[in-house]
């Protein structure tokens, strides 16, 4: 069975997520949800001279989607928009390193889908 899903590092991101909250004077705001389980993510960010200078996320979700939000936002913060555009689903999944079943993949991808929406 999936012994490794709730590794300590993932749980730490769940309990104390990085970049959790909302930027009030954000340059972009996106919302994304997963109707299957009612998870939702609210992503806000600031962009300056082609660079993502700040990003925050919040929302209701499971351990997986919250930890994924925490890890992803920390990774892309201070990167250029160009770099972030090159950051694909595969990179994202290898970054979060969670062994996922098909159903849980959707949870993990929630913050990533929100990011894709923001990039549009």
């Amino acid at each position, binding site marked *: *069975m*999936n*012994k490794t*899903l*709730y590794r300590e590092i993932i*749980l730490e991101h*769940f*309990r104390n997520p990085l970049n959790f909250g909302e930027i009030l004077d954000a340059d972009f705001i996106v919302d994304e949800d997963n109707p*299957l*389980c*009612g*998870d939702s993510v609210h992503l806000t960010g600031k962009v300056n001279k082609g660079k993502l200078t700040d990003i925050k996320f919040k929302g*209701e*979700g*499971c*351990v*997986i989607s919250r930890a994924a939000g925490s890890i992803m936002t920390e990774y892309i913060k201070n990167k250029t928009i160009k770099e972030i555009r090159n950051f694909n689903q595969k990179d994202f999944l290898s970054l979060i390193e969670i062994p996922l079943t098909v159903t*849980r993949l959707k*949870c993990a991808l929630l913050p990533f889908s929100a990011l894709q929406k923001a990039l549009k």
Partner: protein
Amino acid sequence: MKRDKFMKVSLVKSDFPIFDEYPNLVYLDNAATSQKPHTVIDAVKQFYVKYNANIHRGIYKLSENATQKYENVRSKVAGFIGCDDPKEIIFTKNTNEAINLIVYGWARVNLKKGDIVVLSEMEHHANIVPWIRLKQELGINLYFVPLTSDYGLDYKKILAQGFDLSKIKLVSIAHVSNVLGTINPVSEIVKFLKENKLSVKVCIDAAQSVPHLPIDIRDLDCDFLTFSAHKMLGPSGVGVLWARLKLLESMEPFLAGSHMILKVFRDNVIFADFPDKFEAGTANLEGVVGFGAAIDYLNKLGMQNVFEHDQTLMKYGLQELSGIDGLKLFGLKEAKNRIAIFSFGFEGIHPHDIAQILDEDNIAIRSGHHCAQPLMDSIKQSATARASCYIYNSKEDLDKLVMGLKKVKQTLGI
């Protein structure tokens, strides 16, 4: 409850090969579907080995035998719910199709714009979505009976809505809620409707009650009843609509085509008499035969014993779950008028994580909206975790669930 009244779970369990395959499996997702005993699996196999032929109109022996096997089950199903006339039993694919048959075969023909169909806030999508489509098509209105504070139905409220009561044509509600476990007082509701001179038809979604309670349509006094074989030890792909003869006479088919006809001309058709009229095409023959074996199995246990077993687990489960700090139960806390379906959650924890951590110890429960989104809205949850029992579950299974839930709390630090 006394020990001797309790079914010998260990004996029952050994009839279910899935537990030989997975000896550590704690299966608590019975509201979604039940496991199957040997006898059902064998009946399906035996049908292919000994009886396989298409039914009806076959002149040869094999086909006649297959037809007889299939029709025998119709009588068995009738007997199982206290119905005297097997003609009133229509085989469908599942509860969803049975309800659609009522919606398209009866309601679409008999209702008109402005008529009201009463549903409830605790319905499964199967008993909501077809009605929404009919509303969009015909302009009927839907009223959802709200929940009482203890997760029952506040059905007397329908009198105080200010709508013209003569417009109510049908009340369609679940006998047992697949999320809350509440047993709704069907015969009391029917009596209430009659006392208030409401001449309405009553449809009961019995998908969660027929597997667990002794059911007699004469006591329920309803007009339509629907359920699925797969939740009561039978194969998937078989469901039942029971309806009063008089109603069946006034119903249009939902699916049209072969087998449901008496005579076909180039520009006209005469339908067969029911039940055939409502069973177009080749049915799930082996599934129906397997369903017959499931009913035999339940009859052998005795539905009263099945119910008492459920009630023992229900009482035990309530007691044990209420001992877990921080666990919020969505359902009657009192150990009556409910079955052993437990919906719950912990503040700040997503039910998917509960289910996933339990799965690490082979405890299978469900998490999500359980096809009851309007109910989730009423109880202000986006999802819940749900454990549901059946005949092969024991108190030990519930002990493992409780231990698992303690582990969930520990893992997630609450």
